């Protein structure tokens, strides 16, 4: 009887272990696959030419494979989305955590959840139909599909993660800290910004990093609003991101061609970026638990 029970226990442990290993296996498989398929093109093109080449002309008679414009565009686009999205998201979180009446809070939180659930193709579609023409008209430029449009879309897309993660961090701040501050004669708003926010800072930092991760990995929505030309990034210029560079040429690049191999190399670069961001995120999450 006892033996059978132990056997059952062990079997169940084994099953859980295998299920866990499936995830690890996927990550390993993807990593290995990306490294193997990403290295050859980098070798052929030369790592400096590849990373810092300023021209991408994969279908030209004399093709050039410089992804510096994509790297910069991804960095600028993400940074722009963070600069625009973090203050809005952060302030919303402070409002929800500390100020909003319960009813208002429920409504806004529901809206935020909904925003998180909207598929990125819908963001792209709305951006294409509303934002792009809007930018064209407001700034008097020939085409509104630009880095600016992508930044705005990304900023909106990262709002839910920033709001939710900062909100959780702010709500976890012990009420006693705030009471102590109020009892010293600080106003509620002073209390939020000088006590609650500093006490939640690692959680808020994690929210920002999560936003960065989300923005840098997004492809579909920005492909639809950024114009997708491989230019060096400028605010009103049509641009291409690391993600969209892969997505836009993959379908027609010939198998085995250097072009296709270079697309895998771009994916590898993107992957490394995201690994880096995850490492930073983990650091903050660990820090906030202490």
């Amino acid at each position: 009887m006892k033996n059978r029970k132990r056997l059952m226990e062990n079997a169940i442990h084994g099953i859980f272990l295998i299920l866990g290993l499936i995830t690890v296996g996927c990550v390993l498989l993807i990593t290995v696959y990306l490294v193997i398929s990403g290295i050859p093109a980098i070798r052929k093109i030369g790592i400096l030419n590849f990373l810092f080449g300023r021209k991408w002309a994969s279908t030209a008679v004399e093709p050039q494979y410089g992804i510096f414009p994509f790297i910069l565009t991804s960095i600028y686009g993400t940074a722009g989305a963070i600069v625009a999205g973090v203050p809005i998201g952060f302030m919303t979180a402070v409002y929800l955590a500390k100020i909003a009446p319960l009813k208002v809070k429920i409504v806004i939180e529901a809206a935020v959840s909904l925003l998180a659930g909207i598929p990125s193709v819908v963001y792209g579609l709305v951006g294409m139909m509303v934002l792009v023409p809007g930018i064209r008209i407001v700034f008097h430029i020939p085409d509104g599909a630009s880095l600016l449009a992508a930044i705005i879309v990304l900023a909106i897309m990262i709002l839910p993660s920033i709001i939710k993660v900062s909100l959780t961090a702010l709500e976890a701040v012990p009420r006693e800290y705030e009471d102590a501050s109020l009892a010293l004669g600080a106003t509620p708003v002073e209390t939020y910004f000088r006590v609650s926010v500093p006490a939640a800072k690692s959680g808020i930092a994690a929210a920002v990093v999560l936003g960065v991760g989300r923005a840098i990995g997004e492809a579909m929505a920005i492909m639809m609003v950024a114009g997708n030309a491989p230019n060096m990034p400028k605010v009103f210029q049509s641009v291409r991101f690391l993600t969209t560079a892969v997505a836009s040429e993959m379908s027609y690049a010939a198998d085995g061609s250097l072009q296709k191999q270079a697309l895998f190399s771009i994916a590898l670069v993107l992957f490394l970026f995201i690994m880096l961001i995850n490492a930073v995120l983990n650091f903050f999450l660990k820090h906030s638990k202490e």
Partner: protein
Amino acid sequence: MNHVMTVKELCLWYGSTQALKDINIEIEERSITALIGPSGCGKSTFLKSLNRMNDLINGVRITGEVCYRNQNIFDKDVDVNELRRSIGMVFQKPNPFPMSIYDNIAYGPRTHGIKNKAKLDDIVEHSLRGAAIWEEVKDRLKKSALGLSGGQQQRLCIARALAVEPDVLLMDEPTSALDPISTSKIEELAMELKNKYTIIIVTHNMQQAVRISDNTAFFLLGDLIEYGNTEKMFEQPKDKRTEDYITGRFG
């Protein structure tokens, strides 16, 4: 004797349940007033009414008057932040901010507009000395306050309250989470502080009330049953319920 605070017909409701019933009390200046009574009788509620910390709780309704230096604190033109600066509070559980010892003390003065570094240094030292903890922390002012022991944290909280130069200090069971040695340090400190401040302290420890307080108020189920000189009250309580409580028959 001067009266710093005069409470008249104070009633307080949490939603529909009444937690304070028609409280009348006068607090003597530069003395220690102890609030005793079984748990749930309204001591903390009463204490928090005195610096309007109850304002922050949803559904609280208050009637009656609390006059602090001849001004009803519930009047519309009272600046509640200024009121809370004058009437400091020390909580049951030590609650230093997750900041350095220095920043904890400097928090209040900074809030009230003091930026000058030398002046802040001065206030920090003075407040920590005032709370009898300077010698223990003077070499680690930049270290986190959360690294102190519970008793040290509580004295730090007292120092933090002193840093804004209050007039009255409210203490809600400040020693209930502390060991006996820290407790006696805080009691000594309270007796010293009463030379400069008016202290109102909630305690469920009757020996503590006897040891340190000048006057004692006994609460029961939201009523103030008896109030007067501590010695007299513990020797010869007027009310049967007070007698039952201080002789340990209930609570």
